[in-house]
């Protein structure tokens, strides 16, 4: 039996197993009703619903846009006040730990859902489970992240926009910082490697996917400590802009021709590059970052126990995330790579020639170079607090230039303690 034939057989058998695994599936035909969702990405829901309704025309998917920054609080308030939750709740990686800690979720590995965790990439499972290792959310995508770069600035300051050459030019962060200093010199301090220290934080934090918590103790040194160290190095080198991420100035930076690199997970082009550069004024490139690829972000779909339409909610999740049609719609309509192992045995599925990247097959970077190496930090209920406190420290770093790693780390610990007095941080 040839290897290719074996792969095809495995692919088909996995699909058959997936479709046959749930009793819901056999009853799916003829289902009629409405499924409610809260999701900040209304466009995604609209596109996927259009495709879903071709197969299931009698199921209405009704989305209420809720900003991701307000999401965890809205869920908490609803649970506390007894307000009705939607049938599907989204869990962004930043607040997922907080809401997964609530005992309100359906175990999707149990009947009648029967999700098979082996069908998904193994590295994602810790981000889809609660503290009792129950799968309570289905991850939407592979969140492999590389470095997106402005090709014209790369030619201008590095003499090339070839990804391979650039990758070879900056194999480590030290080399990266050195190149950044060159850019600073060449541009008289007007061009930076990154627009914001927040970008640096995201990369360093996620390149080092150690668990935030070791039992009841926060591993501060292994997480925040390393992040702060790199940020201060770069800040001191003067190679990072002073913008704050997720602000209008940061959104505007994509076309400003002042910032060369952006951490770029699979969802980043869709959410940030495309909307902020609708005219494709910048041609982008993609490389593996110094220190390797990482996983950033991600959103799960969960069903709360209170849902009155669990069957239809699961049908929609399953169609989007576990079916070939759904995976195809995800990729073609929303540029979203579903993390179903079997899909990636098909070489054509890995191709992602994004128009904003000048025809570069960024799928090759994401799926061939980065995805096989991915590791992800397990979620914890302190993720949100960590993120908020780190945001304050990062914001302050640009104002308090005298802060070294130790001072910054002490400030971090003090702020975390301030929010969680009983927390032990090492």
């Amino acid at each position, binding site marked *: 039996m040839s290897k290719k034939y074996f792969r095809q057989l495995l692919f088909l058998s996995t699909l058959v197993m997936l479709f046959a695994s749930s009793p819901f599936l056999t009853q799916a035909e003829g289902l009629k009703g409405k499924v409610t969702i809260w999701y900040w990405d209304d466009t995604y829901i609209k596109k996927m619903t259009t495709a879903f309704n071709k197969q299931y025309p009698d199921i209405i998917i009704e989305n209420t846009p*809720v900003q991701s920054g*307000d999401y965890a609080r809205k869920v908490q308030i609803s649970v506390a006040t007894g307000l009705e939750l939607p049938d599907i709740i989204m869990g962004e990686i930043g607040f997922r730990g907080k809401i997964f800690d609530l005992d309100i979720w359906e175990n999707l590995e149990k009947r009648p859902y029967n999700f098979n965790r082996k069908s998904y990439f193994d590295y994602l499972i810790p981000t889809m489970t609660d503290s009792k290792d129950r799968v309570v959310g289905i991850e939407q995508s592979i969140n492999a992240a590389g470095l997106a770069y402005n090709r014209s600035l790369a030619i201008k300051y590095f003499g090339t926009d070839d990804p391979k050459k650039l990758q070879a030019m900056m194999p480590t962060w030290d080399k990266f910082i050195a190149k950044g200093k060159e850019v600073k010199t060449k541009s008289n301090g007007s061009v930076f490697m990154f627009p914001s220290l927040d970008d640096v934080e995201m990369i360093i934090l996620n390149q080092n996917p150690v668990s935030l918590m070791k039992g009841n103790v926060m591993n501060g040194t292994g997480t925040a400590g390393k992040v702060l160290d790199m940020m201060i190095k770069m800040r001191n080198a003067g190679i990072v802009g002073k913008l704050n991420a997720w602000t209008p100035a940061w959104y505007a930076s994509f076309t400003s021709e002042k910032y060369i690199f952006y951490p770029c997970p699979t969802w980043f082009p869709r959410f940030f590059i495309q909307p902020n550069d609708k005219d494709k004024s910048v041609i982008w490139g993609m490389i593996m970052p110094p220190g390797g690829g990482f996983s950033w972000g991600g959103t799960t779909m969960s069903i709360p126990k209170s849902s009155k339409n669990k069957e239809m909610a699961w049908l929609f999740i399953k169609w989007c995330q576990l079916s070939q049609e759904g995976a195809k719609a995800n990729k073609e309509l929303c540029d979203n790579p579903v993390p179903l192992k079997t899909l990636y045995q098909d070489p054509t599925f890995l191709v992602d020639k994004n128009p904003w990247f000048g025809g570069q097959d960024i799928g090759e970077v994401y799926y061939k170079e980065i995805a096989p190496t991915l590791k992800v930090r397990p979620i914890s209920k302190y993720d949100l607090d960590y993120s908020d406190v780190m945001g304050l420290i990062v914001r302050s770093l640009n*104002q308090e230039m005298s802060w070294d790693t130790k001072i910054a780390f002490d400030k971090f610990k003090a*702020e975390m303690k301030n929010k969680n007095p009983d927390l032990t941080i090492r």
Partner: protein
Amino acid sequence: MKLSIKVKIIGCMCLVVLITMLASGTFAYCYFTRILRNQALNDDINKLNQTARQFTYLSEDIKKFAYSFLIDSDIQNFLGKTHYQDALDENRSVYYAMQRLRSYMPLNEYIHSMVLIGPNGKAYWNVSSQYDSEYFTQKLQENWYQEYKHKKTNNGFTLKYQITEQGKVIDIVGYGLPLKRLDEPERIKGELIINLRLDFFRNYLAIESKGNDGFVWLGEKNEVLYAKFVGNNQSYFKELVKTKVFNSSDTTSIQENKRGYLIINRTADNAWQFISFTSKTRLYKKIDYVFYLFLIFIFTSMAFAIAIFVPLIFNVTNPIVKLSDAMKKVSGGELDVNVRIQSGDELETLGNGFNQMVKDLQKYIRRSLDNEKAKKEIEFKLLISQINPHFIYNTLNTVIYYARRQGNQDIVKLMSSFIKILQDAVKVSEQGVMASLSQEIEIVEHYIVIQKYKHIDRFDLVWDVDEKLKSRLVPRTILQPLVENALNHGVLLKDEKGLIQVSVKQMGTDMEITIVDNGVGMDQTIINQLLSDSDGFKSTDSVHSIGIPNIRERIKFLYGNSYKMNIESLQGAGTKITIVIPLNEKEL
């Protein structure tokens, strides 16, 4: 064309019902259309008022929501700090204030974000999980904020503005509230601006204005915050909105024009205006069903009326038609007709009357025919008898001439009486059926003279006649046949001399004639026969060949059943015949 009574009545009934229904239907349609139009307009007004009220409530909610931050400790802390230990201290202060604002946002879907303007003049915007301090600091220079500041009011809504977020342009209306420290209430230390999503309100208005052809929400400066144009009058309403010709100072007003109705509401205390436009086409379309309802009502009522009235009309007209048909038959000479009507009303009485009338007609015609026949017979007999008496009269005159020449007075006397009787017989045909009582007495006396020569000393006749009755009219030849019967069938059949008494007396308004004899009398069988309708006892040898039945029939013919003849008889003792006739006023 001759129409039957049935067709006429049904036609009239249909016409009356149709006219009545059309008239009442038209009136009711006009009346109800007016009511429904007013009601539809009132519904539109109420709906618009309700929308305006909802916006007022929402404004109040927003105000109260904003007020809830006034004394919040994180906000107060943010406002109070002008000196910070380090950047982290400042960032923390802003961060917690931002977090406090954010914590309430999930409860209000219409809030996009919030802006906190600090004592340093910087505007912090809680756009992300952190915040931004640049975007809104610059945005406050725009017209919407400058206009708001220019108003110098404590709080209120701003003009419309736009926020660009991740390439998306979002329409916003802001609500501003000055912030003060509790320990320095006289000084404004900062400001809160709540960014409200216009789309949220627009979606609400889109639902609320579903029944309108146009809907506009105008801001304080008449800027269009929401506009909807549908139907055939889009361009008209667009132009109206463009020129903003809503010239009324009333809080709620209706403006009617050729195309429809504009309803304007200015009740919102933030100078917002809501204008709805409903075209006449749409308004009348709403109440068009009334027209069809009335048409259905009219035709159903007509059908119902016809269904009820036609059988009733048939009940009335069918007997009339029957009567009419029967009358046609009767007028055609067919008397064997019987109409059967059982309506229990006047028509049944009419039918029975008709049947009785036909029966009577049959009877009278039959009797008339009989009388005519009898009359003809009498006339024939009289004609025959007129021949002989004239001849006999001439002959007897010759006999009298010769008897007188020869001096035989008996023959003269006898023949004279005989001639008188013959002359009376001639008079019957010449002078009618009535004669005076004295004429009748004279005939009897002539008859008696003759009979006395024949039956010498066999009888006597005694008269008892009221003198004043002698001139009264009685049926001609009524006495002589009776006297003749009394003589021949009573007195002469006895051996001894008989007596015949004739008396005529007045009995009130009647005349009573009695002929009594003391002859042999007769048994009851004969009496019954004489008084029955059959052609009974007849004097075969009487002068006029007229018997008692003839006299009886004549009396009945002339005077009706009330006047009749009575016979009493006792065998061997005699007979009494009594005739009572009305006293005739006429005299001869």
